[in-house]
């Protein structure tokens, strides 16, 4: 996934208190307040970053999962058994992620784990997950290539996001691209896809650059972008560095000449930027809260009803909600609370997401997703183009 380490912290504050409250009650009790705290509750682990830099995404992930679980419990659970959430904080740190995973699996004996956010943490816990044969449900977009019986992904992949996005950029804003990303695998894989897509569409890559985490001065990069004459800047820098970069890019008048196409951008970044700074940023996503579709409106209403008017209904909430629903449906279909059977049962059927019908493919346990292109106007993301259902190749090939 995009975000990667402790220095990342996109996001806002207005709704923070509420979320923090939610997270800490969860942490204290470690369980959802639910009447069915019986011994036969089905324990579900949540491993999300609740500190260390990515808490916003972590809290939204928790909300998505919680919403689905609570709905299921309110509907009577599965064959009379309720779900119980056990929430753990991975602190955005791989070591802690492994420790917490072990706790969830060995101490709490959960049947599945939802999370985490970063690829680094997902990869770090993978050996543990596989060693203890406990399925991991991962609902953040990432670079692709995970093929494991025990990992189920609901993630935007490069193929799904970049392949349709780049031709749109070329057609709308110009045919020269500059790619600028953080120095790790996700931006590099994304940019590989950008390069392929741009060349296929007849565009030209005029620059590619990576930055280490924690850089505070992007003058030379801003200068290089300007000198390259690129019409479009594909940005896959993450977290705080991205905010720092965009502030300096905009201050230097960059957006007047170059369109900012930001991969991995979401509503979470908007509060860290001023109106001028976020104006006109285009991005690609599976879901945005302003989508003019009945299912989107219903989903937004549902989230706000449960978590308050100030709750951000991002891609992350939608993805975690959906993946949790697949899991619940899988438990129903499996006929028994058995990890292996659940894994086999969660794929191959459709559910309605906040943005159209979605299905998990049995062959690689990844999702076919509906994708939209959005632009930020007046501190809100608005739809530019609905790309509909986009499929990716199986991640288990090659």
């Amino acid at each position, binding site marked *: 996934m995009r975000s*990667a380490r402790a220095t990342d912290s996109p996001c806002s504050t207005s709704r923070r208190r509420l979320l923090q409250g939610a997270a800490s009650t969860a942490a204290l009790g470690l369980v959802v307040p639910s009447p069915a705290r019986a011994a036969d509750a089905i324990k579900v682990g949540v491993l999300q970053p609740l500190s260390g830099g990515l808490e916003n995404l972590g809290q939204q992930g928790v909300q998505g999962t919680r919403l689905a679980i609570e709905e299921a419990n309110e509907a009577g659970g599965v064959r009379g058994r309720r779900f119980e959430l056990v929430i753990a904080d991975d602190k955005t740190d791989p070591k802690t992620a492994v420790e917490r995973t072990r706790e969830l699996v060995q101490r709490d004996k959960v049947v599945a784990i939802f999370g985490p956010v970063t690829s680094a943490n997902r990869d770090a816990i993978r*050996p543990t997950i596989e060693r203890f044969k406990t399925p991991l449900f991962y609902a953040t977009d990432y670079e692709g290539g995970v093929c494991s019986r025990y990992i189920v992904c609901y993630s935007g992949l490069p193929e799904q996001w970049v392949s349709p996005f780049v031709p749109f950029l070329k057609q709308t804003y110009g045919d020269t691209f500059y790619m600028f990303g953080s120095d790790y695998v996700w931006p590099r894989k994304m940019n590989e896809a950008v390069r392929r897509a741009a060349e296929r569409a007849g565009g030209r890559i005029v620059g590619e650059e990576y930055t280490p985490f924690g850089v505070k001065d992007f003058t030379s990069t801003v200068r290089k972008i300007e000198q390259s004459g690129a019409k479009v800047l594909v940005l896959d820098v993450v977290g705080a560095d991205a905010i720092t970069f965009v502030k300096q890019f905009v201050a230097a008048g960059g957006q007047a000449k170059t369109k900012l196409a930001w991969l991995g951008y979401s509503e979470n970044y908007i509060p860290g930027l001023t109106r001028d700074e976020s104006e006109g940023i285009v991005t690609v996503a599976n879901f945005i809260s302003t989508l003019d579709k009945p299912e989107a409106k219903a989903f937004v209403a549902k989230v706000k009803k449960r978590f308050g008017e100030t709750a951000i209904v991002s891609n992350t909430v939608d993805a975690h909600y959906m993946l949790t629903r697949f899991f619940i449906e899988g438990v129903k279909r499996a006929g028994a609370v058995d990890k292996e059977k659940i894994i086999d049962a969660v794929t191959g059927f459709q559910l309605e997401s906040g943005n159209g019908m979605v299905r998990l493919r049995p062959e690689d346990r990844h999702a076919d997703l509906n994708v939209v292109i959005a632009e930020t106007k007046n501190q809100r993301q608005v739809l530019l183009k609905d790309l509909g259902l986009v499929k990716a190749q199986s991640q288990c090939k090659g």
Partner: protein
Amino acid sequence: MSPPRVGIHLTVVVWLLLAACPLLVSEWRLSQLAQITSYGIFAMSLAFLWGQTGLLCFGQAIFFGVGAYVMALITKGMVSGVGDSTVIGLLAATLLAALVALAAGLLVFRGRGLSGAYFAIVTLAAAVIAERAASHSRFIGGFNGLLDVPPLRYGGAASRVELLAPTPVYYVMLGAAGLAYGLLLWLERSPLGTTLRAVRDNEPRTAYFGFEVSVYKTFSFALSGAMAGFAGGLFVTQFGFVSPALIGVPLSTEVLIWTALGGREVLLAAFLGALVVRSVESLLSEALGYYWLLGLGVLFIASVVIFPRGLLGRLLSLPPPRRMAGPAEPPR
């Protein structure tokens, strides 16, 4: 007036308690304890360098990380020609970390070398460089690091057994910790240890006795590096992965806090410092949320200002080596 022997008794009690843990705690706590034992060994490596030789290193995780990466590369079979056994991995992890530390030590200490704050800041910068370089190196997995590192295992390729049950794993880890402790303690109480403490206490005086101080600092650095590498190798068998996060500043400072809180001058205090902070953290950090780290920071400041020898240091400190007392007093 012989110093109180309470330190000896407490030390024995601590080790007995540690050995009895499988009877006392739940299975998963035990496996957790096995995991953080590698941090304990790591803390002892720093205690040896800092507490005994007086070198405050802000980049200790470099050696831990080197050990972890080497262990991962070997046990994953990514290095041809040396096999992929746990033992070879651990040996190589220890040795390579030692070599890196030795090279760094030669670079830093020779001639009119760096000391004090300069050394601390330079090691801090070195930790940043190491982390950047590691996340930029494809061969060792870049930012995400190396995954699927095998657990402890024994036996030949054909009949290989992976060690997964908590109790044996715990005893292996505890044994490794005991080994590290024994070795470091023996060194510490040998004449060599006396010399290192002499360097710490009064460096010019030691030079005026003909000791080439830089050699001793380098030696201590290399040895401490080796121990950190050993800890890193063990860490990998427990956690199954290695990533640049293990080689950089955050872990370097974490180990500093464990060691300082426990007591830098006493190996066992540093070891317990790591074990206790990590255990308490896993118990409390979720309940306290953001306040946990705030509390830890304040506690750390308080211990620096009020208890420079750590919270456990005084309790667990041992009397000087027996040879110091000499033969029994002749009858008067």
